């Protein structure tokens, strides 16, 4: 599972994330929503080991991402929002690089690579330089690289940007499959319909603080009449005219 305890990231005077307490269980997809600049990407990057928190703790299946980063990263599959890759490697070379970095068994890695290339419809491009890939193809390649070592936790930032509907469907199915296998998936997205469709629970972050957590239905009942769409709930909770403290009255505290 993925958990954060009083996680805080301060950029000079700006607190990008403030005392964030989050808990993503094994076998759960957790949708992480929030307006631009709310602190979603910062949180995900701390858990992925890309940036260090100012204070607080983040653990992945018990491994502290700061104190025990290598063990934590070994079991995380991290997928960033923008697929910056090594342009001068081919897709296959890049995946071989990833397999070696994760110290995977050559034969198994090769089989898994072949399977994932096929699944993501990249087989024809595996021996082409990455610089010739489209944005969507790079995004798919990043996903393949994150899944290659069969992670126990997946941290994913905006997974559907640049993907065609077919690939989007595929990714949703893959996440569901990983959930079934007991993987903890933390997914940040602006596509509220997707969050509503695949996330078991949803957390809304605003100005660096988690202001609501629950299933889509729970959030609807807490904030509105229960008939609204998730979009309405999101807009109500993240209204620029409300400070997070004032929202405490409107929603029950996150658990």
């Amino acid at each position: 599972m993925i958990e954060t305890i009083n996680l805080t990231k301060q950029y000079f005077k700006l607190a990008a994330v403030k005392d964030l307490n989050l808990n993503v269980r094994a076998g759960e997809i957790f949708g992480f929503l929030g307006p631009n600049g709310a602190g979603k990407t910062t949180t995900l990057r701390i858990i992925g080991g890309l940036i260090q928190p100012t204070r607080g703790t983040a653990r992945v299946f018990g491994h502290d991402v700061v104190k025990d980063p290598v063990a934590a990263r070994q079991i995380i599959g991290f997928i960033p929002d923008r697929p910056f890759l090594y342009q001068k490697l081919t897709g296959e070379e890049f995946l071989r690089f990833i397999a070696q970095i994760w110290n995977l068994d050559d034969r198994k890695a090769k089989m898994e690579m072949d399977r994932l290339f096929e699944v993501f419809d990249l087989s024809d491009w595996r021996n082409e330089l990455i610089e010739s890939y489209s944005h969507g193809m790079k995004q798919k390649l990043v996903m393949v690289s994150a899944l290659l070592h069969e992670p126990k936790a997946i941290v994913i930032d905006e997974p559907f940007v640049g993907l065609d509907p077919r690939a989007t469907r595929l990714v949703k199915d893959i996440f569901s499959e990983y959930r079934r296998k007991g993987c903890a998936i933390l997914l940040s997205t602006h596509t509220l319909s997707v969050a509503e469709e695949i996330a078991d629970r949803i957390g809304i972050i605003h100005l660096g603080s988690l202001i609501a957590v629950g299933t889509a239905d729970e959030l609807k009942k807490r904030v509105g009449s229960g008939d609204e769409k998730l979009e309405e709930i999101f807009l109500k909770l993240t209204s620029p005219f409300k400070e997070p403290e004032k929202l405490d009255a409107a929603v029950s505290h996150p658990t």
Partner: protein
Amino acid sequence: MRQYPILLKPAYYSFRNRTRRVEPGTKLRTLALGLLAISVWAFTFYAFVKVLRYFQGIEFIGPLLATKLLSMIFLVFFGILIISNIITALSTYYLADELEILNQVPAEPSALFFSRFTESLLESSWMVLFFGFPIFLSYGVVNASPLIYYLWFPLVLAFFLLIPGTIGVSVTLLLVNLFPARRTREILLFLALLIFIAIYLMFRLLRPERLADPEAFQSIVSYFAAFQIPTSSYHPYIWATNAILPALNGWPGGNGFLSLALLMSTGLAFVFLSNWLHQGMYRRGFSRSQEAKRSGYFRRTPLDYVLVLVTFPFSPPTRAIFVKEVKFFFRDTTQWSQLFLLAALVTVYLYNFKAIPLSRAGMPTFFVQNLISFLNLALAGFVLAALSARFVFPMVSMEGRAFWIIRSSPLSARQVIWAKFGVMIFPLLILSETLIIFSNHLLQVSRFMNYLSAITMFFMTFGIVGLALGVGSMYPRFHLENPAKIAAGYGGVVYMLISMAFIGVVVALEARPVYFYFMSYFRGIPITTEEWIGFSFYFVTAAALNVIAFLLPIRMGIKSLEKIPLP
């Protein structure tokens, strides 16, 4: 054309914001670069004043030589500017990120052409203007020219620059319609490098030091004298020369105005012509430059098998980084093409040792040979430091925006740094030892000096590569793609200063025992055991310094890399 100034604003704002932005080390960097620029400027001015005064002292052919030199300067500028303008125009018209927006806004094609042309011209010509200025100034000073000259030559230069500028843009417009933009830029950069290497080698192998020999100089003077500057020609460099010359002594007169008029009319006609070409060809070329071409199938090559063999003893993660670094190097034209430059550098380096007239030094040959060999340690160290600045220092920065891959992987910063160190240490060891052993062989130095140089250089290579990698990890510049630019930053300056000091101290530490050794040899008095023990202090200190220079920066680099913010 109302949109012309609007289209130039983003470039202006970017420039203004760059100059306003103060990052850690900006002041030091600005100071260091400013001092360097002033030194180069002052040196150019001083050298040209000296040469021109010397020419003035030669009867009859002196003024002719000064004129010839001026025309050659214009010719060299013309050649450099054409290549520079083509390469810059490829970026400003076809490859720049902002073009996606600029080509989509409802701007008049002419406004777009002229705004991009202005940017391209300024970007490609400012350096020639900057470093050419002291040359033209020196002509004025030596000839005690009136004020009109100082107003006249910038005008001549401005119209002169217009011609290679427009030729560059027109050639680019034509080339991009034939070849993909990115490939064209790579080929041109590579060609420019080859031309530079050819000129560099040719210049050195012609042995310009012979100019100091009066007998050889006679023939060169007569060679120069054979060339007169034609008064009428179709070459812009001749027009520029003929426009400048009369102004050196007063009012430019008919010939001066006619030459300026030729430059102006041709320049403006070329501007008109390139705008016309732009209207007809730009859209098609831009569209072509946007098409993602399949890069061709990459099968296993002999290099893959060599890499498998070489990296066999290492762990898979180290192997992975090793292979990635090597493949990157050989697939990036800006990287592998540097090998040609390196080969030229080594050739000239060793050739210099072959060409040294040892017998003319006025000292015993044995002494001179070994003295030069000792100083060669510092020189080879400097060459190695400069090469490490270009190839080792940028290694971490070159991860670029893909650095997240390493950061989110189970690799520790220690593994990453040591793997990168492993990639570079062996080729640089081979190179530095080649320089030292071959130059010593050419100098025919003593066995003691041979061993001392080879061993010192061996340790120093570890120190220098460690420094470059360590400091490069402390000051990464992930947003830059060009390795030369990465090394030109604050961290690069810090690295160069430390490595210069390091080389200096190591050589200084060894100077004393080496001096005593040669003096005892010269006087025929053997060195006592006590003296050897005393000398060993210097050698041990030098060795300790090497170990510190090697390990400390790497350690600091690892710590810094663990915490550095992502690009």
